């Protein structure tokens, strides 16, 4: 296919879902069948276009690709931004361009996003009980019935997918930000999809906040990050003179920027932009929104956690990787901050996940933890390791979420069967023995769980995590102590990951049903199980594309497809920058084979799975039996179960002061107290003067003037515009005084008389 065709196709990738959003919203929202068919059509169109583009990219020679990393790019003038700089003549208009570009990094995202989204769309049709009797109450889950807002769901999901695709194909930071923020809106609308839902919690239940609050929390938390990121974007634009990644990230671009704002300014930029990632990818300290985002329907959770949203944060950080790399040369603390936050979040979230009982809650914290892995990897320069883990994680996490949704669906079915509307169908303590009730779901969950745990050699999660460990270890052996910190913390996190995943699998599927809900659960419909099978396939085989070239010290040739392919994105500019002494990272440096990271991977994965099996799998929990960890850890378990109390802390530290500052300080004290108080005082003085003048007038001047005044009042009364006597005098006198004063000033200025008045100036 010609390059023009492929470029045009790239433009059209996000178009389908975006168009479908408008079509469903405006026209077909009453027809459910048509709505979901259209949504499928939109995303299938994206899938076909994306994969065509990807197939063409993959077909290219990697060396050639390295010379021309950007293949299908074009842009259009979007916003005029003043005149051209003098060196270009100065007579034309300077434009901010909007465009698309496909390089290897984009390509792997284009492989993953539409596929994952399509699977989720297929699943959603079943999840919302298409074809069942229609539910009657809008804005709450109607168990076992078709959702009354079925069409709205697909419209918003299409917009979500379209926004993610815009972000992926964007060739500049601003268009990326557009997709980024629209996704923020979609997540808000979809987390709060059941906007009318309220919980009536009993003691001992898993604490839930209503979806509408969760939605607001998600939007506001990410917005904290986004406003900082916006500063980063404009600083980027001002320093590089462009927002286009490929124009900015050249030797020339960096020299220009360094000349403008200096090395310190360059180091500030990745931190400002990284703040955006911290919010979007739910890293500490802005991680608290993601677990609550579970209040949305499960397909939404899967979209947020796998295909879009949180992946966007990592993707953006990968996009600006040369910026991070250049900062590291003079400001290694940038690396410490990024890797530190990533590694800390990975470990913290893993500890929390160990003590959660909500089947989706565990997964939510596992996402936070896994994203921490990727960010830690980027902090130590592991560009490819992070990209690889991003893709594998997206597949197995989508799989896990959809499986857990299937479990919940099955439990809800059980709940309806036994007419129990109080037991939380998401609480793993009430599950057990689902393996035989839901075999497809069980196998899917098992594959996803093992990929997440990093079960050696088979699963994708193993290979991508191993690459992160290998990179961290490599950094450490080359004199960067940060590598060791990352290796140790991520190793611990990986151990916990394997442990809590095994715990989750055991609590859900092993043993005997612990409640009538689990007793009467049954397998979900085909719409839901088929996507599980497809995703499970990718959760395994994708890892094989990233087996190290020198695995086990053997020379296996160039089998690490992911490495060689993704590297082309930044290879040339990074080499150029490295040779110019602007970055310490040399992308051509071979990562020497070592047993240390491999053994780490093996030990933590197998150790974690084994420990989990010993505690939860060997003797599955019995009915009413408390979690063995509660006895073992006591208050520490409570601390973890309550998520380190971050929510409570933020509530006291930020939310309450903000409300006080807004409602009491800004509105009452400042506006009504100080500002209006001053105004009223001035008004009272003027009023007093007016009264004095009135008395003066009554005593001294009477008769004729009175008549004029009466005339005024008569007019006023007649026109009924001024009804209150006091106010009317008020207006009259103030107006008269104002006019008199004005004329006096005019008189003064014209005739220059009244020397005494002039002294006033």
């Amino acid at each position: 296919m010609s390059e023009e065709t492929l470029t045009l196709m790239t433009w059209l990738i996000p178009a389908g879902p975006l168009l479908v959003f408008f079509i469903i919203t405006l026209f077909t929202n009453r027809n459910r069948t048509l709505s979901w068919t259209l949504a499928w059509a939109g995303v299938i169109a994206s899938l076909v276009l994306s994969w065509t583009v990807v197939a063409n990219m993959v077909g290219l020679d990697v060396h050639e690709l390295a010379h021309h990393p950007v293949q299908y790019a074009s842009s259009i003038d979007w916003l005029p931004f003043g005149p051209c700089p003098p060196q270009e003549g100065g007579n034309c208009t300077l434009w901010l361009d909007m465009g698309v570009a496909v390089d290897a990094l984009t390509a792997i995202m284009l492989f993953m996003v539409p596929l994952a989204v399509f699977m989720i769309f297929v699943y959603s049709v079943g999840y919302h009980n298409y074809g069942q009797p229609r539910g009657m109450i809008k804005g709450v889950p109607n168990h076992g019935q078709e959702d009354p807002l079925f069409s709205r769901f697909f419209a918003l999901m299409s917009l979500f997918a379209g926004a993610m695709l815009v972000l992926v194909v964007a060739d500049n930071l601003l268009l990326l930000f557009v997709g980024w923020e629209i996704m923020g809106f979609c997540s808000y609308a979809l987390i709060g999809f059941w906007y009318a839902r309220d919980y009536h919690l009993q003691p001992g239940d898993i604490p839930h906040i209503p979806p509408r609050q969760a939605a607001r929390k998600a939007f506001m938390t990410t917005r904290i990050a986004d406003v900082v990121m916006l500063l980063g974007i404009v600083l980027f634009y001002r320093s590089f003179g462009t927002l286009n990644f490929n124009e900015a990230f050249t030797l020339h671009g960096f020299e220009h920027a360094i000349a403008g704002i200096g090395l310190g300014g360059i180091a500030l930029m990745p931190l400002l932009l990284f703040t955006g990632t911290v919010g979007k990818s739910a890293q500490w300290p802005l991680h608290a929104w993601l677990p609550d985002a579970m209040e949305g329907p499960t397909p939404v959770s899967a979209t947020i956690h796998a295909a879009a949203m949180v992946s966007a944060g990592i993707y953006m950080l990968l996009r600006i990787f040369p910026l991070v790399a250049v900062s590291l040369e003079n400001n290694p603390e940038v690396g410490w901050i990024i890797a530190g936050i990533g590694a800390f979040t990975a470990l913290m979230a893993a500890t929390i996940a160990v003590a959660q009982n909500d089947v989706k809650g565990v997964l939510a914290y596992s996402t936070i933890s896994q994203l921490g892995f990727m960010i830690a990897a980027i902090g130590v320069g592991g560009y490819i390791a992070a990209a690889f883990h991003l893709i594998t994680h997206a597949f197995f996490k989508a799989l896990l979420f959809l499986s857990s949704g299937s479990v919940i669906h099955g439990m809800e079915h059980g709940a309806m069967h036994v007419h129990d509307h109080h037991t939380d169908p998401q609480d793993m303590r009430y599950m057990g023995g689902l393996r035989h009730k839901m075999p497809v779901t069980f196998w899917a969950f098992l594959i996803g769980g093992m990929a997440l745990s990093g079960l050696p050699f088979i699963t994708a999660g193993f290979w991508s995590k191993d690459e992160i460990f290998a990179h961290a270890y490599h950094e450490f052996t080359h004199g960067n102590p940060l590598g060791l910190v990352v290796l140790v913390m991520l190793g611990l996190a990986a151990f916990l990951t394997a442990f809590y995943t095994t715990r989750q699998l055991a609590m859900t599927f092993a043993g005997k049903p612990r409640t009538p809900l689990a007793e009467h659960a049954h397998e979900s419909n085909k719409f839901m199980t088929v996507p599980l099978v497809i995703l499970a396939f990718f959760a395994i085989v994708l890892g094989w594309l990233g087996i190290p070239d020198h695995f086990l010290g053997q020379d296996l040739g160039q089998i690490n497809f992911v490495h060689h392919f993704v590297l082309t994105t930044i290879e040339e500019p990074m080499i150029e920058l490295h040779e110019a002494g602007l970055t310490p990272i040399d992308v051509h440096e071979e990562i020497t084979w070592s047993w240390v990271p491999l053994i780490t991977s093996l030990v933590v994965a197998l150790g974690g799975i084994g420990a989990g099996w010993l505690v939860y799998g060997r003797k599955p929990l019995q009915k009413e039996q408390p979690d063995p960890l509660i006895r073992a850890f006591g208050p520490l378990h409570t601390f973890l179960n309550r998520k380190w109390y971050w929510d409570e802390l933020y509530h006291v530290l930020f939310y309450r002061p903000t409300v006080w500052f807004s409602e009491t300080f800004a509105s009452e004290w400042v506006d009504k107290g100080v500002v209006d108080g001053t105004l009223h005082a001035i008004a009272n003085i003027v009023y007093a003067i007016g009264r004095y003048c009135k008395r003066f007038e009554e005593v001294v001047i009477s008769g004729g003037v009175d008549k004029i005044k009466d005339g005024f009042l008569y007019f006023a009364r007649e026109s009924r515009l001024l009804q209150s006597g006091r106010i009317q005098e008020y207006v009259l006198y103030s107006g008269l005084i104002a006019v008199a004063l004005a004329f006096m000033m005019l008189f003064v200025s014209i005739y220059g008389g009244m020397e005494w008045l002039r002294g006033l100036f």
Partner: protein
Amino acid sequence: MEFFSDNIINLVIFFPAIAAFVLFLIPDDAKNTVRRLALVFSLVPLVLVIAMWLDYNANFRGLPGFAFEYQAEWLPLLGSTYHVGVDGITMPMFLLTTLLTPLAILASFNIEDRAKLYMVLFLIMETAMLGLFASLDLLIFFIFWEFGLVPMYFLIRIWGSADRVYASFKFMIYTMAGSLGLLLSIQIIGLATGTYDIPQLYDLWVNLSGGTLPVVGLSTDTVKWVAYIAFVIAFAIKVPIWPFHTWLPDAHTQAPTAGSMILAGVLLKLGAYGFIRLVIPMFPEQAHITAYILAIFGMLSIVMGGYAAFGQWDFKRLVAYSSINHMGFVVMGIAVMAFVYGSAYNVPEWTGDAIMATNGAVFQMFNHGLSAAAMFFLVGVIYERAHTRDLKKFGGIWTVLPVFGSILIFTSMASLGLPGLNGFVSEFMVVRGSIGIFPLYLALSMLGLLMTGAYILKGIGATLHGPTKPEWQSLKGQDMTLREHLVIWPLMILMLSLGLWPQWIVTFINDTVVWLFS
């Protein structure tokens, strides 16, 4: 045809006033006739402005100076002429005014009390606003400035809510107080230079320096400073810039729906327009020196406006405070313009920054006009049905009014500055322009941008979300009427189209702004 094209600007400005006079002749009780006629009349200037737009685009784009100029003898004794004209900054304001007036009139079809007087006042106000935007003479400018106050005062005073007396009075007196200094300064400028013609004053007044002014006997410098401060205060009250803003929430809360639409949509822009058209070009030195103060107050408007909006429980007050928050960005852009325009050094990067910031400020004026008018209208729609604006009393409205709910969310998102919609583009432009000049104040104002999200979500959440309260079940089936759709859709279409493709309007602004800075 020649006559028509020469006089099109006068036709645009005075047609509404003539229409108001015609309406006046219709009997009071023919309310429907009055309404429809008023709507049809108000569409005429819109059509004319579109014609002007196309003509401008074809013949005047990129040329320095003003288009459609018209000058006539008026007060030769004082050296004042009737001088009007438009440039790329005026054109968007013309479009905004002529677009919002018919929509406001359409939104007011349900006014039963003295409907004729109401429509007449709206049309008179349109003339005042258009005249002000086109004025190229200081005295004419001032007359239109004062002229616009009166109809709005009566609109609030007669058709307002419970506390309308206090609010209308505060609005009137506060603005008048600002005008006082403005009038005086205009007189001094006129006397010192012998002309009130704005394009001439850009030269004469600016280059007047040293010595004492003959007529007032004060040093030129002092007079310039005093006049500058008087100008700034007059326009700062109108924008309004924090802390001159407290008239605004009161006026908005009490004004009828359409009054709020015009007040937020156009009248606030008069202040910002005054800064761009008069203050900065006529007082470049003073503006340069005090630009950082303006930036600080812009920042305070953004931040304090945002917080105060979040603190409101009256939906209309919340939207009113959002205007202060949004106009803060206009002020920030103007501050950058002020800093660079009057700077003695020619730093190319600064000029680039200033062009972007000024473009952004003007575009933000237009965008805020759309979104604020739409927000006030929607608050009016729900108020008509629920008879309350108390956010604590709402809850679950989305279920009973699904279309209204979705439109409210769309409009709120435009107001919030969601990328893809118009507000984001202009905010981005201002932020981009300010980062190099006022990085600290800009960074602080990000706090206000954060609060924008907070109060918008508060508004949506409190009205639409949650289980439907029993008292609102009766609203079922009372979703938006065709007339209400006709009001909101043009605004929504513009919000989306400007968000996706802003250049059809920004190129106009950019051409003129580039010329200003060259």
